[in-house]
């Protein structure tokens, strides 16, 4: 099989996985899901590391380092912010100062 077709196959299958896997998400989770997906594409950091680490052209290295900084902001910030958001969402207050409330 030609490489391009292999990659196309992987691409198509990933499209299905991507859609099916989130197709049951409730609207409450839209924002954290967006943010988590955003963190996942921070994996471009891996690409940035690879291109920077395999070149010796000074300008390329500098550009590569900038890409690394940007990508790590994306990745790390993305996961941390998503976690903070989800902490909010799932926190059950241990015991509010609610007195003898009904319901």
């Amino acid at each position, binding site marked *: 099989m030609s490489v391009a077709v292999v990659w196309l196959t992987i691409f198509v299958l990933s499209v299905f*996985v991507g859609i099916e896997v989130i197709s049951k*998400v409730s609207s409450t989770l839209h924002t954290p899901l967006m943010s988590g997906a955003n963190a996942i594409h*921070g994996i471009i950091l891996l690409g940035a590391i690879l291109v920077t680490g395999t070149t010796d052209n000074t300008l390329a290295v500098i550009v590569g380092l900038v890409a690394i900084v940007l990508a790590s902001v994306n990745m790390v*910030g993305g996961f941390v912010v998503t976690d903070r958001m989800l902490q909010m969402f799932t926190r059950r207050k241990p015991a509010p100062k609610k007195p003898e*409330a009904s319901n």
Partner: protein
Amino acid sequence: MPTWVQLVYLLCAVCFILALKGLSGPKTARTGNLIGAAGAVVACVVPFIYKPNGVEHLHHVPLILIAIAIGTAGGVFGAQRVQMTQMPQMVALFNGVGGGAAALVALLELHEIVSVGGDAPWFTLAATAFTIVVGSVSFAGSIVTFAKLQELMTSRPVIFPGLPVAFGGTAVVAVILSVMLVNSPHMWIGIVLGLLGLVFGLLLVLPVGGADVPIVISLLNAFTGLTVAAGGYVLGNTVLLVAGTLVGASGTFLTLLMANAMGRSVANILFGALKGGSTLGAGVASDRPVKSAGPEDVAILLGYAEKVIIVPGYGLAVAQAQHTLRELVEVLQARGTEVDYAIHPVAGRMPGHMNVLLAEAQVPYEQLKEMDEINSEFKHTDVVLVVGANDVVNPAAKTTPGAPIYGMPILNADEAKQVVFMKRSMRPGFAGIENELLFEPTTTLLFGDAKDSLGKLLNAVKAL
């Protein structure tokens, strides 16, 4: 690439799938996010261990580590400091830098291709061009959305004559240059494509009204995913391909879901302004007669009701009145009144806005009822207290086929015995259309800033 590296990458890709799967359910969401983070960390550690180009280890390791440290510090700092209500702009910013990084990586890859004589398959070159352009679009677009939401610039649509022409022109030139790049790769073409992408990103997002921005963020997020996928193809790296595609596909689907929940179409959001009409409604205040009352009157209504439902909306966030609201609810509950919050999926200006806001004010999760769950209870309810919401209870969504919100599911506040609206004026909500419910005989208006009014109401209820 040694086989074990490929297997590790595959494992990381699986982590990302599991992450998305986890993130789509409330119970598994946090674990999902952590699995994704673990996969990302493992994938990024790999190139430091094996020999990427078959012979030598990675060059410039110290510099790379410093760059990662800087980025990580920045990311953590931003992520920790941001307030809950500023989440959308934070996500936009993170998305933008990711897009920028993808564009830079593609430029470097182009540089590599050019320096070995420009001999690459056309599909690789096309993917490179795609990544440069779309990554730049995502970068510029996200920065503008950030500026809009952070109120560094006006959040109204920015439109100028000739915008459609500029828009179309940029697109055509970008396509022509991409074709040129595929035919004979040159560095300058790549750089110009990047600049065009930046311009295009600006032109795409400037005309979008501030409140539509969450949709646009989600769309740009999907864009960045696709650029990462294309970058993965260019670099021959599966984990980038799979991760990027996952984000691209799920992001696109999520964008449609979100737009749908607001009863809007993505095309309308993006190109509505270009066609001349603003994406926001008219926003004029009506002068038809309504019944208004003071805090004391409303306090009596609430204080002696058996069942009250609170409908929070955008105004609650604007007024930052969530804590006062929670206090009021607690006092009412202490009096024996049954009180629930009815959460409309698109109340506020970002999906889940009300959940985040009320969670921050420590409202117990159990009291937040989703629309489907509570909609049948309105008819047994004595008083509905609408705090800074408007569109989400507007019956026009059911009755007026021409209305911009027609077809959007709404909370059936109109079925309750009494409705109290807290707002500052008669101005309409986000959709810019009048709300007939305001003029119903069962409706009472309590004018004023939500925080202010809630404070007065709280005192009045306590004094009962």
